[in-house]
């Protein structure tokens, strides 16, 4: 009797529930891998993910930027599966991870020579690490002091959530503060934009960003500076693969991906693709450098 009366209503309710829950269930069946972090790495990882999805139609990967700090924070808060970062995870972040039970496994997927760039109209061709540090600390304010034109230096940089910002601060700036005159841009591409249109500019970007992919040479209008470790050392270009590989180029670094604990099967498969020969070919095509033997071993250990 009761059932008879409300039959219609129950049927409708069932339909409604089905409509609401089916998409959720479907979405869960096809799990999307979230990758988030470094702006330097975003183009590279996006291309890698696209290529991987072409080969493995079942895979779904979403790649987001935001900066290395943002990616690592997301890994700590559990809002991403993989964090891209262009600097190592800091001790403070490691502590936060332990507090939250996050046990990071880090993979080096490519090598970058951080490139110091100026406008092509600037006569400067090389700088030492000390000079780069002095310029970004604001101790040197005019190009004349480092052998250029008498022109106030116009500083372009990244925001503090950027791994590149931290990396340069730790290396060239020797852990001192950046000058407060640095114009803080949102990403590598914006720094390039700024340097292209500003004769007195200096900026720093990942080497993959200075390459014009159609010609294989640095982008027109930009000049990539040679960097020397100190006054006595020889200076090298970040476009020089050997110098970056051997560490003669003083600001070369790994580009990393971290997961929480041992990566699950679908994530591990993607990382394996990135580290494999096809993935590394893409790394080179995007203007970065493939990983050497040392990193390969470490990576293999972390995948197990």
């Amino acid at each position, binding site marked *: 009797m009761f059932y008879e009366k409300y039959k219609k209503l129950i049927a409708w309710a069932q339909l409604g529930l089905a409509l609401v829950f089916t998409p959720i269930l479907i979405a869960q069946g096809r799990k999307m891998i979230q990758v988030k972090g470094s702006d330097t790495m975003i183009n590279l990882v996006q291309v890698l993910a696209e290529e991987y999805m072409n080969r493995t139609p079942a895979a779904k990967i979403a790649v987001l930027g935001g*900066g290395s700090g*943002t990616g690592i*924070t997301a890994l700590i808060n559990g809002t991403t599966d993989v964090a891209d970062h262009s600097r190592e995870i800091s001790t403070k972040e490691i502590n936060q991870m332990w507090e939250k039970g996050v046990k990071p496994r880090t993979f080096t997927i490519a090598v970058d020579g951080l490139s110091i760039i100026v406008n092509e109209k600037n006569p400067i061709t090389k700088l030492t690490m000390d000079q780069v540090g002095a310029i970004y600390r604001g101790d040197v304010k005019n190009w004349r002091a480092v052998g250029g034109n008498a022109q106030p230096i*116009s500083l372009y940089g990244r925001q*503090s959530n950027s791994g590149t910002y931290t990396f340069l601060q730790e290396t060239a700036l020797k852990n001192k503060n950046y000058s*407060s005159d640095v*114009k*803080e841009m949102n990403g590598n591409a914006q720094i390039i934009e700024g340097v292209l249109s500003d004769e007195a500019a200096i900026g720093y970007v990942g080497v993959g960003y200075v390459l014009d992919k159609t010609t294989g040479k640095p982008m027109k209008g930009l000049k990539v500076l040679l960097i020397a470790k100190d006054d006595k050392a020889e200076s090298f270009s970040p476009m020089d693969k050997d110098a970056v590989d051997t560490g003669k180029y003083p600001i070369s670094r790994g580009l990393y991906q971290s997961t929480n604990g041992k990566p699950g099967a679908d994530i591990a498969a993607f990382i394996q693709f990135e580290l494999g020969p096809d993935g590394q070919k893409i790394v080179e095509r995007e203007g970065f450098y493939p990983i050497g033997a040392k990193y390969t071993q470490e990576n293999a250990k972390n995948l197990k």
Partner: protein
Amino acid sequence: MSKQGLRNLKESAVRTFFLMNGVLTIIILVGIFALLLYSAVPAFREVKIGEFLTSTSWDPTSPVKAEYGILSMIVSTVMVTLVAVLIAFPIGLGVAAYLSDVAHWRVREIVKPIVEILAGIPSVVIGFLGIVLFGPFLAGLFGRTNGLNALNGAVLLAIMALPTIISISEDSLNAVPAAYAEASLALGGSRWQTLVRVKIPAALSGIIAAFMLGMGRAIGETMTVLMATGNARSFPHGLLDSVRTMTSNIAIELGEVPYYTTHYYALFAIGLVLFIMTFGVNLVADLVLSKYQEREQ
């Protein structure tokens, strides 16, 4: 239930509904203020409030010593906003006067919608124009190597504030009773005298509201200034310096900051200061408005 009873019920239901809407806005406002206050106060466990408001160096991620001084940002915000309004207000009032007093009705029918379309342009687009078009122009004009500075931001904000100022000023000029203008013209006043000495003073409350609302539009705008002003943290020494406003700073740093740290709370404290500033502007606008309305009556 009788028909009359049903009607009364409906009436009171509708009345309650509207009352609830009114109450809701108040609850939202109080809620936002409470949330801001709650999230901002912990910042002052580590940062002295005096230092927070008067120090010019902001560097929360410094490896040497974290510094939390927002004076540079306050000055930058005030500078960019004031210059924007000073540029926009005369132009806006001029356009409003033209539309209400001088323009042929056909011209007005064309120009008014265009002004309203201007209000609909997304701030990202205006910021982009600042980077590619207006910045390089300013750089050339002042012999600088780049145009990412306070003036660039101010001009863009002026463009964004214009539609508000024009629409409201024009409405209030149109609302002046025709008898005022007719009396002035009959007494031998020229059209210019009628406009400046009769119509504008009569519409003053609306014009001041337009000024204040334009200022409110400018002070809270984020994306445009973020893109166009260069975001350097230094204390501004002029309009051609690169500056970082309070809104830009919050937008830049809130996305990356680890939760529940002093840096996180300090960003909310900046939000609170901004809230108090805009609240002040609106309060002054309201006081001025009610004063003029009293005088008119």
